[in-house]
C-alpha cells in the first residue's frame, strides 16, 4: 500500500492510496465511490482500478499520483478529497470504501460438511459447487467474457453474457461451440432474459403467460413485456440473444436455437422476435424457421422501415384473440402549453432500441434528426456533440458514455445533468423526450431522481414526454413512477412509439425555431 496523505491547497485534505494487485469489479468500485462521496464533508472521491482512462479521470479531478506512481490496471486507487480540516472526514470516507469493498458476497451452496466451501475462482469451480445450476451469467469486462462464457459452455451450461465489447469473432466461435454442446448463448451484450418467470439482468416482473420472446434487443423486449402487461397478457420466457445475433457473421445462431426451444414449450402459445432489422439472408433464414414452427411467430423488427414494439404487442394480442387497447398514458399534473418555448427536440434514452424506434418514428414527421445511433453517417453524431438548433436523439447507454460511469438505467444522474443543461440554455430544446426503464436491476426510484430536473425544465418552458417502460409487478411501482413524472409536468406513455408521436406534435405546434 502506497499512501500519500497531504493537506492540499485551499484548506483541502486529500489522500491517494494505491494498492498493488487488489481487484474489484467496476460496479462495486462505483458503489464504493458513491458511498465515499456521501460522507459529509467529502468534496470528491474516486475509487477505481488504475486503467489509463481512470488515471485520466483522477488527473482531471486534480489528484496527483506522484511522479513514479507506476500505477497499472492491476492496481486499485482510492482517492478522497475533503473540505476544510478534513482528516477525520477522509478517514471516514476511506472506511466507507473499505466497508463496501469487503462486504462478503455469500455463496448459497453448502458442501454438506458444515464447512464453508472455498469460494469458487472459476466458472468451472462454481458449477462443481452447484451442479444443479443450469445457467451462468457473465458480466466481466468484454475482453475476458469469451473465456468465462466458453468455460460455462464447456461445462454444459447455458450462458447469459451481459458483457459488451466482445469481439465478433469470439461471439461466432462461442456460439458454434454452444451449438455443438446443445446449449444456448444469450448475448453478448444481453441485458434482459426471463426464464420460467425468473429475470436475469434487467428484467421486468411479469405475470406468467402464453408469450415467449426472443430478444436481440433488451429494452425492446422490456417494452414489449410492459405493453403486454398493460393488456393483461403474461410472458413466460424472454430469451435474449445479443444485438449482433442476426448479423451475417453470427447468422442467427442463438435466435434459431431459442426459437426452437420456445416452439417446443407447450405452454408458449405465441412467439415474438424483437430485433433491429437483420441482415437480409439471415432474415430469410429466420422467416423460414418461423414458418416451420408449430407456434405462431410475430416478428417485431424495430427501426427504419420496420415495425414498432407497440405494433408487435398488438399483433401478439391479436394472435391470442385478446383485446389490445391503446396503451396507458398519464397527463401532466402541472404546467400549461401557454408558457412553453419553441425549440428543437432533445431525446435522452437509456434504452438503445427505444432510441432507434423513436428515430424511425420521428424522421418522417420532423425531417432530419441527429443521433449517435443514426444509420446514416451525415446525421450520426457523437454522444457529446451538440449540433445546436437540430433535433437530437441520444442513446445514453453508448459505450463511450458508460465506460467508467454507471449505465443510465442504473443511475439516472446522467439524464438529470443533461436535462438541467438543456433547461439552463435559452437556445436549448423546446421539447424533451425521455425513456424511464423500470424492473429488476434498474434504479429503485428513477422518478424521484428525475422529477426536480423535469420541474425545472418545465419552468424554463420545456415540454417533456416520457416513455415509461415497466410492468405493474415491478418493484419501483409503475403507477407511483408515472405519477411522480406526471407531477413534474411530463406527459407519460407506456408506448414509446406513441410518446415519440406526441413529442413530434408538440414540436410542430410550438415551432422549432430553426
Amino acid at each position, binding site marked *: 500500500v502506497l499512501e500519500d496523505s497531504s493537506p492540499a491547497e485551499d484548506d483541502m485534505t486529500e489522500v491517494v492510496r494505491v494498492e498493488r494487485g487488489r481487484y474489484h469489479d467496476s460496479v462495486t468500485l462505483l458503489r464504493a465511490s458513491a458511498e465515499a462521496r456521501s460522507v459529509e464533508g467529502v468534496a470528491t472521491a474516486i475509487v477505481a482500478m488504475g486503467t489509463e482512462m481512470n488515471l485520466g479521470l483522477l488527473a482531471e479531478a486534480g489528484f496527483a499520483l506522484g511522479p513514479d506512481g507506476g500505477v497499472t490496471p492491476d492496481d486499485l486507487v482510492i482517492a478522497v478529497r475533503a473540505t476544510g480540516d478534513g482528516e477525520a472526514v477522509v478517514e471516514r470516507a476511506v472506511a466507507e470504501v473499505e466497508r463496501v469493498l469487503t462486504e462478503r458476497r455469500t*455463496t448459497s451452496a453448502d458442501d454438506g460438511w458444515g464447512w464453508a466451501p472455498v469460494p469458487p475462482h472459476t466458472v468451472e469451480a462454481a458449477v462443481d459447487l452447484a451442479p444443479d445450476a443450469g445457467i451462468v451469467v457473465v458480466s466481466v469486462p468484454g475482453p475476458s467474457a469469451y473465456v468465462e462464457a466458453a468455460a460455462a459452455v464447456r461445462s454444459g451450461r447455458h450462458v447469459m453474457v451481459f458483457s459488451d465489447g466482445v469481439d465478433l469473432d469470439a461471439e461466432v466461435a462461442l456460439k458454434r461451440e454452444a451449438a455443438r454442446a446443445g446449449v444456448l448463448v444469450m448475448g453478448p451484450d444481453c441485458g434482459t432474459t426471463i426464464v420460467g418467470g425468473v429475470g436475469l439482468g434487467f428484467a421486468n416482473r411479469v405475470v406468467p403467460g402464453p408469450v415467449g420472446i426472443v430478444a436481440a434487443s433488451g429494452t425492446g423486449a422490456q417494452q414489449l413485456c410492459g405493453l403486454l402487461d398493460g393488456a393483461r397478457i403474461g410472458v413466460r420466457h424472454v430469451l435474449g440473444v445479443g444485438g449482433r445475433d442476426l448479423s451475417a457473421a453470427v447468422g442467427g445462431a442463438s435466435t434459431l436455437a431459442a426459437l426452437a426451444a420456445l416452439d417446443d414449450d407447450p405452454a408458449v402459445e405465441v412467439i415474438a422476435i424483437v430485433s433491429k432489422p437483420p441482415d437480409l439472408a439471415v432474415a430469410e433464414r429466420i422467416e423460414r424457421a418461423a414458418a416451420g414452427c408449430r407456434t405462431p411467430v410475430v416478428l417485431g423488427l424495430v427501426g427504419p422501415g420496420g415495425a414498432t414494439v407497440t405494433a408487435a404487442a398488438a399483433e401478439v394480442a391479436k394472435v391470442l384473440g385478446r383485446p389490445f387497447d391503446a396503451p396507458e398514458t398519464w397527463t401532466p399534473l402541472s404546467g400549461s402549453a401557454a408558457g412553453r418555448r419553441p425549440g428543437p427536440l432533445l431525446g435522452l434514452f437509456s434504452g438503445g432500441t427505444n432510441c432507434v424506434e423513436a428515430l424511425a418514428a420521428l424522421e418522417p414527421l420532423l425531417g432530419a434528426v441527429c443521433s449517435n445511433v443514426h444509420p446514416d453517417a451525415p446525421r450520426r453524431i457523437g454522444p457529446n456533440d451538440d449540433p445546436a438548433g437540430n433535433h437530437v436523439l441520444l442513446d445514453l447507454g453508448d459505450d463511450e458514455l458508460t465506460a467508467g460511469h454507471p449505465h443510465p438505467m442504473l443511475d439516472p444522474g446522467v439524464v438529470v445533468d443533461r436535462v438541467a443543461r438543456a433547461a439552463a440554455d435559452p437556445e436549448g430544446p423546446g421539447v424533451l423526450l425521455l425513456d424511464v426503464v423500470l424492473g429488476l436491476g434498474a434504479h429503485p426510484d428513477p422518478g424521484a431522481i428525475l422529477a426536480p430536473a423535469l420541474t425545472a425544465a418545465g419552468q424554463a418552458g420545456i415540454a417533456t414526454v416520457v416513455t415509461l417502460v415497466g410492468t405493474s409487478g415491478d418493484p419501483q411501482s409503475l403507477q407511483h413512477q408515472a405519477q411522480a413524472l406526471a407531477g413534474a409536468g411530463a406527459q407519460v406513455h407506456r408506448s414509446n412509439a406513441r410518446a415519440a408521436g406526441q413529442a413530434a406534435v408538440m414540436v410542430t405546434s410550438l415551432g422549432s425555431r430553426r
Partner: protein
Amino acid sequence: MSPSQLPPPPGPSRVAELLRAPEVVVTVGAPIFDEALAAQGVATVPVEWRPPPAGSVGAVHTVSADPRLAEANRTAIGRMAAVRPRLVDVVPAADAIGLGRHQLLHAGPPITWEGASGPLRGAIVGACLYEGWAETPEAAERLAAAGRIELAPCHDNAAVGPMAGVVSPSMPMWVLDDAAAPDGQARRSRSTLNEGLGKVLRYGAFDPNVIARLHWMQRVLGPVLASALHRNGPVDVAGLIASMLTMGDEGHNRNRAGTALLVRTLGAELVRGVEADERSADEIADVFSFMAGNDHFLLNVVMAAGKLVGDAAAGVAGSTVVTTMARNGTEFGIRVAGTGDRWFTGPAAVPDGLYLGGFGPDDANPDIGDSAITETVGLGGFAMAGAPAIVQLVGGQVDDARRWTELMYQITLSEHPMWTLPALDFRGVPFGIDVLRVVRTGVVPIINTGMAGRVAGTGQVGAGLVRPPLDCFTAALDALAARATAAQPAGAGEVP
C-alpha cells in the same frame, strides 16, 4: 453469405432444460445480478473473479480458443495418471546418469556459479570436497568460480534433488521406473538419498560431519539398500504414496508414515544383508537407525516418482498442463506439456513459516529445490487436506489444510485416480496444474517447503509454505498462445 458460412445446425439441444425456472444461478462479474436474483428468491453462486494481468488477457483468450486444448489436456493428464512408479535400484550417479569429473547437477532451472545463491554455492563446495576435487572450501570456490565445474539441472537429466539438489558422480541414487510401461520401454527417474535434517549438503552445509555422512551413504547406505532391493524386487511406489496419504503424510514436508512403510517393506531383506553382503550387524543397524532418525527419508523417492509422472506429459502439443515446478534458490521455474523442455522462470520468493532455533526471516534464502515436483503431481501442498499437522508450520488451523487443497482443485484439471484423501471422502488429490487456470484466476500453486540459510554453510533454518511467482505462468501462457492454432473456419470439419 454462402451456406458454408452459416453456423452448423444445433447439436442435441438441451435448451428446453433452460426453460424451467432456475433455483440456483452461477454469476461471474458485477454483483448487481446476485442482488436481483436474491430479490426473486433464486440462490446464486458468485465466482470470485478477478481479471488476469492486463498483459495476459490476449493470451488467456487465445489459448482458451485453441481447438486442441481439451483433447491435448486429456492426453497429458491421461499419460500422467497412467504412470505407476516403482523403486528398482540404487546406483551411483556416475553409472545412473553418466556424471564424470567436475560435473554436477543442481535443482531448478539452469544457473551459473555467479547466479547461485548461498545454499547452492555451499552444496557445490561440499560436493567438490566430497569428491576430492578440492582440499578446502576456498579451493572449491575458486574451482567453481573459474568455471571448471560443469553445472546442469537435475531435471534435464531425468533426475531430481531436494533443496540445492546437488548430485555428484559418487553419490548413490534411487532409480525408479514405470511398472505400467511395456517391458523394455519404461522411462527412468533418479534422485539422491536423503541425508536427514539440519546441517546437510542439500541445505548448503559442508562441514566435515556433512562430508563424512556422504561418504558413509556412499560406502554403506547405498550398497546395503541396493542389495536389499534386489532381493526384495521392485517396490510399488504408487501404492506406497496412496498408503501414506491415508496416514497423514502429504509426501513433501511430511513423509513420516511413508518412511516407516518403506523401512517395513525392506526390513527383512535388509537384515539378510548381514549374510548376503557380509555386512556387520552394526552396519545394518546403522542403516535402520539412520532411516528411523530421518522422517524425510522417503521424500527423495516420492520426488523421483513425481518426476516420472510429470515427464510423461512433456511435449503434448497444445496442452497447458504443468510438468515441472522447480527452484534453484534464485529463480522459480516451470515447464509445461505443450512447450516441452523450455523453462519459464521468475524470481523465487522467501517462504513463510517457522524458524529453527534462533533463525529468523533475515536468515532465510529464497525458495530452493526440485521438491516442488511433489506439488506438480498433486502431493505436498496440494494434498494438505490429508496432512493437517502441516498447517502448524504456518500457525494455521486444521480447516486451513482442507481449504488449501480445495483451492488447488480450482487450478487443476483432474484428480489422481489412486492417490486419494480420506478427509475429502476419498477424493483424488488435485492433479494436473493448468497454466491457463492459474493465469485466469491469479491463484498460484501452494508449496510446502524447507528453508535453507541464506549464507553458504548454514544448513536448514526452517520450513513453511511458499507460492511461485505468477510471472512463470504468464510467460508460459504467452508461449502457448504463440503456438496456438486458430479456431477452424466455419463448417470445415466439425470436431465430434
